[in-house]
Every structure is written in structure tokens, then in C-alpha cells.
């Protein structure tokens, strides 16, 4: 019976998305309760699914009773359950934040629920075309949310993302079309079989299909050099939206890349196409370095951590390209861990912006005296992003680098060592910009006069200037604690993800 949870987890948020708008005709401020109840249900559902998957093994659900490969299938396995859980938890946590700092309208909550449903759909679907649909739902709602505060800059950022994102999604669709031509099926599991039976790994149609799909994902993930929409989008969006988007949207796309690469095209496809592996590693390596370097150059806090995401996702994609069991484990750990870290970091920045109007690095001067807990959590999360053990950030990077070095040892190639070196270099860059933030927070030596602290943030109408609201602060501190606590969970990650990894590397 648990399998019914899979369609419900997608359908309920999407259906519930109509409620704030519909009821909003009659009641004001009805959006938040509806979103909260739905999201709580989503968390419960995610917990149940994760429990079932990690104790009883993967399971699936055939939508409408149509058997695959014709019908659409929803699959919960060790990988998707982890992402589902992350999506549900971060969505719920974001609601706590958005209630205080906005945005609050019914339209926002409708879009928010649609986004949640779409993200869950991305993580659960087992069908290539269905994946496109959910990616589009996620994309469209994200465009809308970015422009939610109706400022000119956010409208431009939204438009930019809209145009570029649509082209990217189209590339993905083109790729799916090629694969469909080659294999005659859209079900992921079936495609992986049919590629061998009806085509081959070196079939130009299959190769071209993967190329289009990979480029489409690269854009959605925001890898250098097709990341150009992402810093604008993160910077200009309302703070709570940035929190959600930064933690989940690119994460869902990166998850989809892992899923499509390993469950659809399989590791044998990578082995048969050296060129594609080389390109993936090259792009991800450049992404890691360029993203880190660009992050160091920023003085706007949100933009800084936006570029940081370019680098971090570079590492995850590198883990995909290395095609090593340990590296992929690291990639998945970093996927989840990075989502958590970015949620925490943007949440902390949102709180400091709402309370103290801090939007640039220099605005943070000695804020640790006024907001010790928020600053402390921010510092911890930043150090976790650097990869200081014990933290989930260290764990992910460690496994990726370890896998890279091991694969280099296995094949005698310099590429793996190169990736490990790039990760190390990016760690130094990360340390550089995180250190700037921590230095400003703690050691600026500025005496702050409480009277002059003016909340001039984008959503400043909500929070009381010069304070940090309690509920989101609790969430933020919890995120920091979890980020550190998961640093001890290396063995647990290995055990939980082992079935998935041994299946794709069988």
C-alpha cells in the first residue's frame, strides 16, 4: 500500500496549489496554512517512503494501472528516496522562513506548492518524458517565484532564466526524442535494456540523444559556461525563494542527471564513450574552478554563494563523470549535503538581511555581536561548505576526491588526480570567501549602534529591524547542527546507498 504514497506525494501538492488561489477569492492570508498542511503531509509521506525503501528495498507504482513500458511508472529507490526526503524537509523549513520574511501572498503559495509537487515528481518519476514534464513544472514555477517581489531586476532575472531555461529544456526534449527514436520507449528501465537490444552504445542517435540531454541538464544545473542565468536568479529573487531554489531546483536537475546517466544510459555507455567522459570531466573541472574563482570576486552575499553553487555542482557532475562507485557515493552525499548547506546559508543570509539589512559582505561587520546564533550557524555552515570535518560537506568532497584518485590509480590516468587537485584548489577558494564572511561577522571590530540598523531588505516590511525572528532561527541552527552531525554518518551513507550503487555498477 505504501506505493500509493508516490502518486499522492506528487498529486496532492499540485492539486492543493489551486486552493490558495481559489479560496483567496474569499479569504485573505489562506495560503500559508494550506501550504503548511500540505508540506507537513509531504514530510510524513517522504519519511514513510524513505523508511520503506531503506528497510524493505525499492518499490514502484504504475500510474492509472497502465503497465510500463507503455504506462508511466513512479519509482522509489535508495537514491530518489534521499532526494525526496531532502525536498520535503527543505520545503517545510522554507515555509517557516517565508512566513516571517515573505513573500506571503496566495499566489506565492500556489506557486510554492506547484514547485514542491514538481520537485517530488522529478525525484520519483521513472519515465523520461514525464521527467521533462516535471522539469517544466519546476522551471515555470521557478520563473514565477523569482519575479515574486515584482522588482525590475527580478523581472529581468526571471525573464533571462525563462528564455535560457526553456531552450535548455527543449534541448533535453530533443535528446529524449532521439533516444525514443533509437529505442522506441520512454520508460527509463526499459530504455536501458532497449539501448542494447535495438541500438548500441555507440549508435550516433543514442550518442546525440545523450549529448542533448546532458547539455540540457548542464543548463538546469548551472554549470559553467551555461550558468549565466543562475547568479542573477539567485541574487534577484526574494530571499525565501532563493533559499528554496538554491537548495532544491539545481539539486533536482543534478539528481536527474545522475538518474538518466546511470539508470538509463548506464555505466557501460560511459565506458564505451571516452569522449563524453572527457567532456563531462573537463566541463565539471572548469566549472569547479571558475565557480570558485567567481565566488571569491563577489561582494554581494547571495551572488557569492550562487557562484559557489556552480563550483559545488561541478564536483557532483565530476563524480558522475568519474564513474567510480566511491565517487558516485560522494556525488550523492554532496548532492544532499550541498542542498542542506545552501538552504542553511541562504536562510541565514535572509535572516541577517531582514533583521539588519545586510546584503553585501561589508554589511556584515561585527553582526556576530547582535546576532550571535544566526552568525554562528552561518559560520558553521560556511566551514562545512569549505569541507572542514566533521561535516557533510567534508564527507561528500572526501568521497569524490577519493574516488577520483582511486579511479586514477585503477586506470593510471591523470584525469582523476586532476579532478582531485581541482577539488582541493576549490576548497582553498571556498575557504577564501567563507573566511571573508566570517572575518566580517566576527573580527570587523565595528561598534554597532542599534538605533541605526535599518531593515532595508527587499522584504523588510515583515521582520522587526534589528532582531532575528525565533522560529526561522531555530530552523537555521538545526540545519547547522544536522550539517555537522551528518559528518559522522559516512558509514550510514555507505550502508544505505550501497544497494543502489552496487546495482548501477553491477
Amino acid at each position, binding site marked *: 500500500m505504501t506505493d500509493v504514497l508516490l502518486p499522492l506525494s506528487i498529486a496532492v501538492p499540485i492539486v492543493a496549489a489551486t486552493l490558495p488561489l481559489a479560496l483567496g477569492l474569499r479569504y485573505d492570508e489562506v495560503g500559508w496554512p494550506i501550504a503548511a498542511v500540505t508540506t507537513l503531509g509531504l514530510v510524513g509521506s517522504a519519511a514513510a517512503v524513505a523508511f520503506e525503501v531503506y528497510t524493505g528495498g525499492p518499490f514502484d507504482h504504475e500510474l492509472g494501472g497502465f503497465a510500463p513500458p507503455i504506462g508511466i511508472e513512479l519509482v522509489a529507490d535508495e537514491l530518489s528516496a534521499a532526494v525526496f526526503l531532502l525536498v520535503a524537509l527543505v520545503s517545510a523549513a522554507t515555509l517557516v522562513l517565508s512566513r516571517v520574511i515573505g513573500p506571503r501572498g496566495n499566489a506565492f503559495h500556489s506557486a510554492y506548492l506547484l514547485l514542491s509537487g514538481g520537485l517530488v515528481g522529478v525525484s520519483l518519476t521513472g519515465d523520461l518524458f514525464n521527467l521533462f514534464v516535471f522539469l517544466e513544472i519546476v522551471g515555470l514555477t521557478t520563473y514565477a517565484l523569482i519575479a515574486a517581489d515584482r522588482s525590475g531586476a527580478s523581472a529581468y532575472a526571471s*525573464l*533571462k532564466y525563462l*528564455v*535560457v531555461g526553456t*531552450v*535548455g529544456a527543449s*534541448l533535453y526534449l530533443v535528446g529524449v526524442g532521439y533516444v525514443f527514436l533509437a529505442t522506441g520507449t520512454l520508460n527509463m528501465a526499459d530504455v536501458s535494456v532497449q539501448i542494447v537490444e535495438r541500438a548500441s552504445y555507440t549508435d*550516433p542517435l543514442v*550518442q*546525440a540523444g*545523450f*549529448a*542533448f540531454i*546532458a*547539455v540540457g541538464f*548542464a*543548463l538546469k544545473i548551472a554549470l559553467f*559556461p*551555461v550558468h*549565466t*542565468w543562475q547568479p542573477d536568479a539567485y541574487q534577484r529573487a526574494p530571499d525565501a525563494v532563493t533559499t528554496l531554489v538554491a537548495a532544491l531546483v539545481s539539486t533536482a536537475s543534478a539528481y536527474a542527471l545522475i538518474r538518466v546517466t546511470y539508470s538509463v544510459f548506464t555505466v557501460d555507455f560511459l565506458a564505451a*564513450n*571516452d*569522449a*563524453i567522459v*572527457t*567532456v563531462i570531466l573537463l566541463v565539471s573541472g572548469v566549472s569547479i574552478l571558475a565557480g570558485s574563482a567567481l565566488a*571569491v*570576486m563577489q*561582494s554581494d552575499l547571495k551572488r557569492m554563494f550562487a557562484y559557489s553553487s556552480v563550483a559545488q555542482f561541478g564536483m557532483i557532475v565530476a563524480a558522475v563523470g568519474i564513474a567510480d562507485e566511491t565517487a558516485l557515493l560522494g556525488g550523492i552525499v554532496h548532492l544532499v549535503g550541498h542542498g542542506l548547506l545552501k538552504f542553511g546559508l541562504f536562510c541565514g543570509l535572509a535572516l541577517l538581511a531582514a533583521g539588519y539589512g545586510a546584503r553585501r559582505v561589508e554589511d556584515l561587520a561585527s553582526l556576530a555581536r547582535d546576532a550571535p546564533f544566526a552568525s554562528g550557524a552561518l559560520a558553521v555552515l560556511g566551514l562545512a561548505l569549505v569541507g572542514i570535518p566533521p561535516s557533510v560537506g567534508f564527507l561528500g568532497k572526501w568521497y569524490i576526491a577519493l574516488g577520483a584518485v582511486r579511479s586514477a590509480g585503477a586506470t593510471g590516468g591523470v584525469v582523476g588526480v586532476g579532478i582531485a587537485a581541482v577539488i582541493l584548489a576549490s576548497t582553498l577558494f571556498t575557504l577564501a570567501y567563507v573566511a571573508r564572511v566570517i572575518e566580517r561577522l566576527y573580527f570587523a571590530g565595528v561598534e554597532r549602534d542599534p538605533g541605526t540598523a535599518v531593515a532595508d531588505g527587499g522584504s523588510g516590511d515583515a521582520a522587526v529591524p534589528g532582531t532575528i525572528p525565533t522560529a526561522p532561527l531555530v530552523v537555521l541552527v538545526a540545519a547547522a547542527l544536522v550539517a555537522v552531525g551528518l559528518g559522522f554518518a559516512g558509514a550510514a551513507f555507505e550502508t544505505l546507498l550501497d544497494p543502489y550503487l552496487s546495482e548501477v555498477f553491477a
Partner: protein
Amino acid sequence: MTGATGATAALTAVPPYLVVAVASLLVLALPRALGHGLGALATAFVFAQAVLLGDGGTGAHLATTFLGFDVVFFNVDQFSLLMGVVVGFLATAAVLYAYGSDAPKWVASLALIYVATTLGTIYAGDWLTLVFFWELTAVTSTLLVWQHGGAAVRAGYRYALFHGTGGTVLLAAVVVHFANAGTFLFSATNGIHPAATVLAAIGIGINCGFVFLHSWLPDTYPRPHVAASVFLSVFTTKTAAYVMYRAFPEGGMWLAYLGGFMAVYGAFFALLQYDPRRLLSYHIQAQLGYMLAGFGLATAVGEFAVVGGFAHLFNNVLYKSLLFMAVGVVIYRTGVEDIREMGGLWRVMPVTFLVYVVGAASITAVPGFNGFISKGMVLDSAHEIHNYVLLLDSGLLWWLLVLGGVGTFMSFIKLGYYVFFHGSATLSPDDATPFQTAGMLLAAGACVFFGVFYTQLIELMPFTDLILSDEVYFKPYSRSHLTESAALLVAGFVGFFALKRPLGWLAHHMRDVDAVLFPATFYAGRWSVWGVTEAWAAVDRATMRVVAGAKWVAMNPRRLLAAAGVDAEIRAGIGRSVLLLTLTAAVALFALLLG
């Protein structure tokens, strides 16, 4: 019987340095009298333990692995036991003396922790443990010097530099030893590996006061509290001699001759001194020469020479500290540190005078005192060496040692003459305090005891059966020995009163190597610090300029482009983003399909 072995087993489970280290902490916490009493008890325990373990307690106790290496924390054999006996005994006397000398609690505490590290070195059963405690000893003894403040601080720095260098060299020797032998354990090898010979000799030699490596000795020991000097004067150098034997159990003529030169060099410079503790410090070097001469003859002469060296080491601990105590009482009571300003004190300080005579008679090897026994053994051993034969059918080594003996006589006649006679008393201080007297009597009693009952001394030594057997001619009070001693004594008296004026002139004009060494080191250090600092500053400036430039470029990319005449927007707009995307897709396709 089981009770006895049980007691032995219990004793072997307690490393003595832990007991002393705990006592060192308690000294600080407890009232002064109680703390010093406890400290004396702890060191007395060390003595008793070593005596009791002599009866069937030998072996490698507390053997374990540390950092993956086999180590022995409590190695009990004939050599470490004799060190334990004398260190425990003397430390007890010295704690009593410190209590009687109004030494601050910190002196006793630091002295005890210094004793503890010394014991760790002595009882180490492997080179790793040994070098660990060796370094700790350098640290604790430096602290003991610094505790006094004033002039002791600068001297303490020089002391620390010397011993830091020596410790590092010894550490290198131990590393080389391990690299070649594959183990740190004493039991696995006979001494240190030949590849590490030079490093070990220099590393240990600094603590032994090798000629030209000795300048820390007369520099440091006169400076701290008189009670601290008593501790310092015996442990570091004598432990070094012991470790020298551990490293080179087969000796070597180089070591013997070095010992001979040390005896002459030390005695000669002692003759020129007017600071009593400085004079005694030079004699430490001279006396170490006799020990090293004995160890050096281990192969050429045999176990007799080794026992001679160890017996001299054992006796030296007793009488050298006794002399430091006696001189310390004079300094403590008068506050004067120049023997020319003393004089006629034998009337007002009879106890101190008596004790000084015992110590001086021991160090100069007057019959009836312990130095006579052990120095005789070393001289007898040296007599069997006939290289570079000079007069009286005796070799260079023997003559060096005899010459050192004459010099020793002369300098102690000088010391006694200036302090206790030499005109009428201008000062009238009190005599030693009761606890000073107690400490001194303990040491003095031992000096006389072992001089008279010399078989007891041999009982404490290794190879006892061999020495006391008929094969070895061991008759300290034979006529030839007594004649030799009398000749030395006469030569000493004649020499001193004949050469008093020339020596006084020399003392003004003759400087030791430190006159060159210290300023040279100081200026070399200053110039190297300046050079390194300036070079670093230059590198730093260059780096900072590059970083600042990079930062400016990073912060002002548009201005850089404008300066270069490029008029372009670098942030990708919508159009260029789509272009980038299309290009990427094209590149990916090309790579896949044509790659």
C-alpha cells in the same frame, strides 16, 4: 619467597620517575616543610627501589608499543640500577639541602621534575624513550635555571640553545640508528649503530662537556640558586656519561683520549677561576674526562676500566654535589661570589669547612676517600695503554689524567686556601643551617664510607665478581697507589704556591672559548635573523603586490577592459546566454559524434 618476588613485581610496576613527578607537583601545593619532606621521601623511594631491585629485579619492565614502536619504559639492569641508587640518594640529600637554603618552593618543584626526567632517561630501555626524556631533561633543567631570574635568564637561553642543539643531534642519531637497525630497543643491538657514531658522540658530547662544546657548563651552573646548582651539577652531565656508555659500550681510544684532554683542560681552566661555582663547573668537565677515559678503554683494557668509569661517576655524583653544597653555604651566608673577597672562614664556619675538606679530599683522590678508589682504577687502566709513551714508561693518556689530577689538587688547594684561610676573616657569617648540614653530612658520609669500605662500592657496580676475583689485581691501598697519591698531593701543593702569581696573571689574560664563541654566535644569529626577516619581507611585499593586483582586477574587471580599450559587457545577457548554450550543445555533439 613468593612474598619477595611479589614485592619485586610490585616495585617493577612503579616507574620511579612517576613518583618523583607527582611529588614535584605536591611540593607546589603543600606547605613548604611538608612538601620538601614529601619530595625527600619520593627520592628516597627511588634509592630504596633501586637497592631492592638489585636483588633479582633486573629485566625490561613496562615493555609496550608506543606509536607502533617497541619501547621499554622501565629498563632495570646493573647500569641503570647503580644510577638509580646514587641519583635517589643524592637527590634526597639535595632536597634537604634546598629546604635548609631557603630555596623557594619552585626550586624544589622544578628540581624534582628535573630529577624525574633524569630518571626517565636512566631507566629507558630503548633509544626512543631515552631521547624523549633527554629532551625533557633539557627543558626542565632550563626552567630550573630560569627560575632564579636575573643573570640566570640569559645564561639559561644559552644553556637551552646548547641543549636544544645537542638534543636534536642525538635525535638525528637515534633516527639514523633506527633506519639502520630497525629497532629502538637497547637489547637488540650492542650500543648505537655505527652509522650514527658521529651524531651520537656530538649529541651526547654536548651534555658531557666535550672540549669546545663545554662552554655552557661554567656559564650556567654559577648563576641559579645555590640549591639549584647542587641538582644541576650532578644529573645532566653524569646522565650524559651514562648514555655515552649505552651508546658506545665497547668504548674506543678516541673517547679515552678525549677524556684525557677534558681532564687537563677542565682542571687548567678551573685553576684560573675566582667564582667558586664556576671553578667547580670546570671540574665537572675534568671529572667527566676520567669517566669517559674509563669507558673508552672498555675494549682496550676490559671491564675493569668500565667499572672504574662507573665507580668514578658514582663517586663524582656524591663529592661534586657535596662541594657545590659547601660552596653554596658560603655563598648563601655571605652573598659573595668571588673567593678573593672571602677568607679565614674556617673559624666561623667549621662544619662547612670540614665538609669542604671531605669533598676536596674525595675529588683530589686522597686515600680514605671514595675518589681515591675510582680515580685509581681509571689511572691503573690508563697505565696499561702504552701508546705515545712519554716518561716513566707511561703513555700519553696516563700522563694527561695525572696532569689533570695535579691540576685538580692545585685548584682545590686554591679554593680552600682563598675561602677558608687567606688572611683574616673580614666576614663573620653563621655556619650551615641544620638541614643544609643534614644534606651535606649524607653526601660526605657516603664519600668517606665508600673510600674506606671500597668493596661495598664494587658491590654496587656491574661485573662485581670479576673485579673481586683473583684474576684482577684490585688493591687500592697498595703501596704504589699510596705513593702515587702522595706524589700528586705534593706536586699539587708545590705547584699551587709556586705558580700562584703566574696563575693570577693568567686568570686576567686567558679567556675560555666562550669569549669568542658567544659573541660569534650572537652576531651570526643577529645577522641571520636580519637576513631572513628582510628576505621574507621582500617576498611578502612582492606577494602582497601580486595579490592586490589580482584583487583589483577581480573587483574592477570592467575598468580593466575599459583601460585596455575593449568596450564590451562581460556579464552575459539573455541573448549571449542562449548563444553560449547553443555553442555548448554544438561542442558536446561534436565531441560525442566525432570523438
